[in-house]
């Protein structure tokens, strides 16, 4: 079989459906990566237009362009869109598009999940856009502090759009994070040990794990606030035992890691692009990886630096101030490793390098002002002024947008397979960078002169007028620059000439394929012996196209790739991917109905659509099963490997493991919130604690034991045991809830309801999973092909048992102590 015939055979297997149908049924990461990036850019434009409205309003004093009702929606949506609908999805899109190519594999671990996440993002984002157009957008600021964002300050539907829409969108962040993690750990080219991974993969791995542990507090906070708004469960209302500060803690436990979730992918792009631009390799690879990991760890210890003015005791502030300054150290390691790389190489001044220089100039300033506001007394003055506005734009635009523009111009030849022909990019650069600094540099000073953030107008005579006029004019210059970038990309995509395969002479695997990439990425999978496989072997792309790698024979006629051992990269299994399907878009639409029902308070829709989601999920999982085992198969290059669904740890098991990491963080955040209210909230203890007594305790213990044991029994007995366990836990739950019948009475009662609900939900999930395994057995699936699914079900039943015990302890403990 020659290269062309192999290409045709593989394309038949991997291609998305032609025409418009392909948009909705594609599960291919190249397609979905492009779609993610396109939609993220659309939201960047919307957020940018809102920014221009803000600058138009503030250009002159006493502006009558917008009233405060409108202005508050505009700045809230500007921040919300840029953070949740642009920055994170843009990273997801870039990772979805690039990772399999960098890692030398053919797709992400869970192709349908990619599509599901994408459509959740589109539908959730559409909700937000609708709210904006209808003039009922959130208006409490992008961090939504209650009570202002609760029914007291925002009785309308505005806040609900934020709480429900953003939670819907976060499904895409969590699902992308799960599959990025599993992909990086298991889906690599054989031979690619952890130490030989491309540096971008390390950054993406750290970012994905941060999303799994950083987003759950936000999702929890949103659910609690929505429960307060919809059902009066008073988590944030001080008179009934809640505390407004609980939200601030939960929000910033997400919000500060979020800043690094945004910066680290950019740093990954820089670490990839900069050495190529300097014609050398990255200095201190191990140090840079260690810096990224420690940045991630540290970033979870400094959320309180957003709360220096909330009245936290000074010793507490000192700790968080130290942590906040310390985070500058791993950042410095990376910055100086990059500068050292430039010293070591022979740097040119191509456009990606220009953008990296803009990154250095901007991000270093943002980092330095960040250290300033980490010094507590200075923050007492700078907090909530334009100093902070300027600082965060230096960090986010300097630390994310500029590196992403470098990435855009670096990978554009890969995206479109064409050479950059027109040179609009250079003009755009000289509009955007000076425009940016013109907009934000002097705003630091306006903040120190007393200009608060979020004011909708200001009077003359404070020394702010000239600064704001310069900022507005520069802001429009910057906007014109971004418009030119967009035009540049479109022109290059449609008109420029075919380019060479590896225009930058880079060493990573994404350049070892024809561009634009084929649906299957690699005609055969490489065996990797170094960090820069293309430097080691310039002929690699040709040899891969000739089928000299793994899985070069498409005879089995299905989508296949390899998984490897996590540490060594030795090949382990052959994965069979599902084909094109509309199930993901259907399931996300039904998920959307679930959220829509809550948004418009048509609660009958909620259980119906929840059943719909379960039905879709069952159809989804069912289609993967096989009755008879295949046994070991030929994987090319002499390797004979088992199929992934017939081993003890199939990809779904790893996915479940990391999903449970997020789920466990959610529970941890809930317990944190509970402890916070218990110890800090003014109106505690509640009038009465629930004291379920020994009978309920025995029921929970028995239920948890039955659930855990059920996961270890055969299919039928397992379901029976899990069912009995669920009933026992359910009875105990009823006994507890009978003692706190009104969740709106006190934050304690409300918390008990949420804990009980969380435990019951996990019982039901474990039960459904075990029922599925049993159903497969009845359908005649062999023990070997059922083994992976059974192990997944056991993971979830163990977690459900653990949750039941933890929830019981948390509910019962205060009553025992009191």
């Amino acid at each position, binding site marked *: 079989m020659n290269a062309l015939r192999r290409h045709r055979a593989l394309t038949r297997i991997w291609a998305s459906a032609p025409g418009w149908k392909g948009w909705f049924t594609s599960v291919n990461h190249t397609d979905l990566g492009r779609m993610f990036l396109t939609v993220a850019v659309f939201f960047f434009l919307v957020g940018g237009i809102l920014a221009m409205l803000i600058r138009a309003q503030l250009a002159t004093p006493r502006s009558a362009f917008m009233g*405060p009702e409108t202005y*508050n929606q505009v700045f809230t949506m500007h921040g919300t869109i840029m953070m949740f609908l642009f920055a994170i999805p843009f990273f997801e899109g870039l990772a979805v598009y690039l990772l399999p190519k960098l890692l030398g594999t053919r797709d992400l671990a869970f192709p349908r999940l990619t599509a599901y996440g994408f459509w959740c993002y589109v539908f959730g984002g559409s909700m937000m856009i609708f709210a904006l157009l209808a003039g009922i957008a959130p208006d*409490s600021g992008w961090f939504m*502090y*209650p*009570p*202002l964002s609760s029914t*007291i*300050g925002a009785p309308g539907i505005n806040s609900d759009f934020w709480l429900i829409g953003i939670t819907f969108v976060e499904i895409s962040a969590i699902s992308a994070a799960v599959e990025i993690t599993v992909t990086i750990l298991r889906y690599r080219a054989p031979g690619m040990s952890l130490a030989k991974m491309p540096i971008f993969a390390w950054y993406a791995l750290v970012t994905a794990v941060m999303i799994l542990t950083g987003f759950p507090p936000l999702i929890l906070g949103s659910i609690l606030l929505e429960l307060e708004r919809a059902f009066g469960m008073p988590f944030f209302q001080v008179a009934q035992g809640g505390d*407004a*500060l609980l939200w601030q803690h939960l929000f910033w436990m997400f919000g500060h890691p979020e800043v690094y979730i945004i910066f680290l992918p950019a740093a990954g792009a820089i670490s990839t692009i900069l050495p190529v631009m*300097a014609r050398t390799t990255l*200095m*201190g690879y191990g140090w840079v990886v260690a810096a990224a990991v420690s940045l991630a760890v540290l970033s979870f210890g400094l959320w309180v630096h957003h709360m220096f*003015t*909330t*009245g936290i005791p*000074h010793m507490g*502030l*000192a700790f968080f*101030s*130290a942590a906040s300054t310390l985070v*500058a150290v791993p950042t*410095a*390691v990376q*910055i*100086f*490793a990059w*500068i*050292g790389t*430039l*010293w*070591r190489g022979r*740097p040119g001044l191509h456009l990606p390098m220009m953008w990296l220089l803009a990154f*250095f100039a901007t991000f270093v300033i943002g980092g*330095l002002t960040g*250290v*300033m506001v980490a*010094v*507590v*007394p*200075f*923050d*007492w003055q*700078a907090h*909530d*002024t334009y100093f902070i506005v300027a600082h965060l734009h230096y960090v986010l635009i300097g630390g994310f947008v500029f590196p992403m523009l470098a990435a855009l111009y670096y990978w554009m030849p890969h995206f479109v397979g064409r050479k950059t022909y027109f040179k609009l990019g250079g003009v755009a650069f000289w509009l955007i960078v000076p425009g940016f600094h013109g907009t934000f540099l002097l705003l630091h000073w306006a903040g*120190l*002169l*007393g*200009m*608060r953030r*979020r*004011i*909708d*107008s200001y009077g003359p*005579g*404070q*020394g702010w007028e000239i600064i704001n006029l310069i900022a507005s004019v520069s802001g429009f210059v910057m906007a014109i620059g971004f418009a030119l970038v967009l035009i540049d990309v479109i022109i290059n995509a449609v008109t420029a000439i075919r380019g060479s395969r590896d225009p930058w002479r880079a060493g990573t695997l994404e350049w070892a394929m024809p561009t634009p990439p084929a649906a299957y990425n690699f005609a055969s999978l490489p065996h990797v012996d170094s960090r820069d496989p293309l430097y080691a072997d310039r002929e690699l792309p040709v040899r891969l196209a000739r089928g000299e790698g793994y899985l070069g024979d498409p005879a089995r006629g299905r989508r296949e790739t390899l998984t490897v051992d996590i540490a060594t990269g030795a090949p382990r299994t052959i994965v069979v991917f599902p084909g094109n399907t509309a199930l993901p878009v259907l399931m996300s639409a039904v998920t959307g109905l679930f959220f829509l029902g809550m948004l418009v308070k048509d609660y009958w829709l909620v259980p119906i659509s929840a059943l719909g989601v379960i039905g879709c999920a069952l159809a989804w999982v069912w289609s993967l099963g096989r009755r008879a085992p295949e046994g070991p198969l030929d994987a090319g290059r002499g390797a004979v490997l088992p199929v992934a669904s017939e081993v003890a740890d199939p990809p779904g098991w790893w996915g479940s493991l990391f999903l449970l990491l997020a789920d466990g963080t959610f529970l941890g955040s809930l317990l944190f919130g509970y402890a916070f209210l218990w110890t800090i909230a*003014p109106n505690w203890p509640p009038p009465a604690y629930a004291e379920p007594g020994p009978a309920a305790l025995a029921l929970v213990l028995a239920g948890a034991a039955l659930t855990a044991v059920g996961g270890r029994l055969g299919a039928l007995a397992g379901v029976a045991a899990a069912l009995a366990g669920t009933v026992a836990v359910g009875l105990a739950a009823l006994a507890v809830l009978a003692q706190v019948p009104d969740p709106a009475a006190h934050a304690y009662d409300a918390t008990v309801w949420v804990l009980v609900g969380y435990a019951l939900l996990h019982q039901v999930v474990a039960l459904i999973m075990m029922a599925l395994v049993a159903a497969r057995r009845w359908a005649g699936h062999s023990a070997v092909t059922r083994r992976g699914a059974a192990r997944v079900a056991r993971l979830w039943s163990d977690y459900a048992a653990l949750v039941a015990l933890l929830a019981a302890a948390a509910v019962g403990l205060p009553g025992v102590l009191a």
Partner: protein
Amino acid sequence: MTTLVALAGCEESLSAVHPAGPAAATIATLWWVLLAGATAIFLFVAGLLAWAWRRPPGEVAERPFVIGLGLAFPLTVLAALLAYGLVVGERLLPRGGADVVVVRAEARQWAWSFGYDDAPGRVTEDELHIPAGRPVDVALTSADVVHGFWVPRLAGKLDAVPGHVNVLRLEADAPGRYGGLGSEFNGVGYVGHRFTVIAHDATGWQAFLAGEGE
């Protein structure tokens, strides 16, 4: 009547870098130190970066960059900075003392009420009266949403949180009027959520406590 001086020059009536009290002065000094240090570091990094294009080709060792500049350099600078910040922060905390005046501030959408321990029952709206030259502890709370209390020329800001009481120490060096701001976004009336601090000399303060000018 009272010995109010004219409103301070408009340009700086809300400026944190034109301090009129010891707390704000300490923080303003801190700012200038931070600015000088940050500027020096920025120029240093920019110089290192520019040199990459100028230097003659040759081997570059990893340790000076990663360990020297990446680890040792920031750790040294940050340790010094942190110590400085903590000392300053400690000095700004409300501490006991014979001549401390206690006032109470309650924020609501979109107004401020001030009460005085030295004149029970006396409440002023959107005007906080204090004696000049004496430390004042403002006990802050809120009747509805989260607010912020900020008199830029006198001290840093502190939030007024429903159900909590936060205490901010401020002091005016001289009698006068100082602009105060609600500094936590609180809805449509935010821009107008302002108040005035009126610092009296000793006789003026006694007159205020005695109820004159009511």
